[in-house]
Every structure is written in structure tokens, then in C-alpha cells.
């Protein structure tokens, strides 16, 4: 898989850190079926809930922002989260497109 775009997410993450923000780096690490963003896609979230980049077409971002805020607040280093097809019991949000994705959150420290 070629990296065909250059979104400067990591560069921005470094600027946020240098501005004394806490930053969670979020990466798509696995996909099944028709998920909108490919493996390696990234997003960053800071302690204020500000974010940049995307890991789905908007389907699971809100949930990931909450998870990132929790990670930063609890000062945890990493977390893995799986999103499946919309399933009210498991998650508030899901992928309308029917795909599945696994997301990895890590705090930059």
C-alpha cells in the first residue's frame, strides 16, 4: 500500500506537544469489508477535544474523540478499539457502510 497523501498529522502532533497540549495519536490498524479509510490513516486529538485528520468518513470520530479524552485524562499510554457494523448494544456508533475497523490510540509522551 503506497502512502499517497501527506496530511502532516504527525507534524501537527509535534506542534501541539510543543504548545504543551496532551496528544493522543489515533491510527487505523486493521480493516474488513468496505471501510472508508485505509490502514495507516491517522487522527490526533488533544485534551480539549480538538482534532485533526480522520480514521473513518465521520462514522466513528465522535466516539474516538471521547475515548482519546479518556485516555489522556486517565494518563493511559495506549488502547485498542474495534468498531463493527452498527450495533446499538456494543457501541453508540458504528460504520454505516458495513465495514469493520480496528483503531489504536496512543498517548504521545
Amino acid at each position, binding site marked *: *500500500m*503506497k*502512502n*499517497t*497523501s*501527506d*496530511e502532516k498529522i*504527525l*507534524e501537527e*502532533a*509535534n506542534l501541539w*506537544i510543543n504548545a504543551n497540549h496532551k496528544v493522543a*495519536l489515533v*491510527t487505523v*490498524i*486493521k480493516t474488513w469489508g468496505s471501510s472508508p479509510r*485505509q*490502514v*495507516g490513516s491517522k487522527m490526533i486529538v488533544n485534551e480539549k477535544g480538538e482534532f485533526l485528520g480522520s480514521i473513518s468518513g465521520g462514522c466513528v470520530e465522535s466516539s474516538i474523540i471521547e475515548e482519546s479524552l479518556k485516555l489522556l485524562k486517565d494518563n493511559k*499510554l*495506549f488502547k*485498542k478499539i474495534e468498531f463493527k457494523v452498527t450495533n446499538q448494544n456494543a457501541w453508540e456508533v458504528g460504520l454505516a457502510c458495513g465495514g469493520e475497523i*480496528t483503531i*489504536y490510540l*496512543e*498517548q*504521545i*509522551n
Partner: protein
Amino acid sequence: MKKQILENIISKKNNKEEFAIVTNISNGENFIFEKNKIIDKNFEKYSDEIKNYFNNKQNGIIENTDIFIDTYFRPIKVIVVGAVHITQFLLDYIKNLNFEIFIIDPRDYFASEKRFPNMNIINKWPIEAFEEIKTDSSTALIALTHDPKIDDPALKHALKNKFFYIGALGSKKTHLNRCQRLKEAGFKEEEVNSIHGPIGINLGGKSSPEIALSITAQLVLESHKL
């Protein structure tokens, strides 16, 4: 991820180096894999698989492990000859893509830092400029001056070095004349016909941003055929 690793990744990206970020998703450890460097001892037992992913330019989790690999490859080079109005719009589009971009224009009032902030500008004639840039079959040329003095030497260099994409701005008539000149200079018919001219996918628009968009679309299309 440690800040030091993040800074390392950014510097490697800036230097257009090839590497992979390898992460153990069960304990949060990362290291930067490089082709000819020793693999971190915590990741040693996965070295064959890591190399495999890297060589196949692949991202993903190694099967039956908790090891995730995110590869970074040297971007395709795109050389734009002519720092004209269309070039300004073109760069707005293509700077978001993973290309290493150079602008060549011997006319310093066109190729100025003010018109093209933070870009690689080579303020020289194409023949001199190409001495500074290593080019090959994964390089693209976009010739936009439609001045034979500037465009033709660049087109000849691109044809000789078998660039994967060569596009030249100009009307059908301008392009016919250009093809004629190149044939007279000894290039074969099929070589000359490989030049995309008039440049761009025909979207119907004639304004500078629309032409820039049509060139971007064609460049992306051709780069995915590599």
C-alpha cells in the same frame, strides 16, 4: 509513542527516507525500522515479517501477532517547469499528495519565494536544474511555460529518462509543433506520443484553477498505474 520517536519520524519524512513505524499494540512500544539498521531487540523475533511488510510497501498487523507496521516510502518526484499562474493553483492541490515537488524556472520574477513560499524552487534553465535532481522512471514532468526555449529541453530530458508521466501545456496546434520539433530532434513517434498534450484530463474548464485541477487528476491517475 515517545516524543523522541515522533520527532525522529518527522525528520525522516522531511529527508524523504524510507522507514516503517513498528508498534507492539499489546504493550505500546514503538521503534523505527530502517532497511539496513539493526532491529530493536524487543522486535527481533518478528524481523522476517517486518522486512516482508516493508519490502511489499504494506501496512498492517503481522498475522497472529500484536505487531503493527506502518510503512513510509520515498514519494514520487514531480517536476514542474514554469512558475506560472497555473502552477500556483497546481501546487495548492498537489502539496497534499505524497509527492516531492520541484519548480524549475529560469525567470526569477516568476520563480520567487514570495509567489511560492516554502517550495523547492530551482531558478535555473532546465538542463542545469536537472543536474541537481536525480530523476528516473518514477519521476513526473509537468511543463507549463509553453515556451520551447524552456519546455523543450525539459521534455527531452524526461523522454530520455523515461519519466512515467510527461505533460505539456499548450493548444493542439502548439502541441503539434512541439511534437514535430521533438521528432526532428530524433525522438521516435511513440515516445513523442507518450507526452500528454494538451495537458490534463478534459474537464471542460479553461480557467487557471480548473486547468490545474485537470492536471492534478491526470497526474494522480498515472501515478496509480506505477
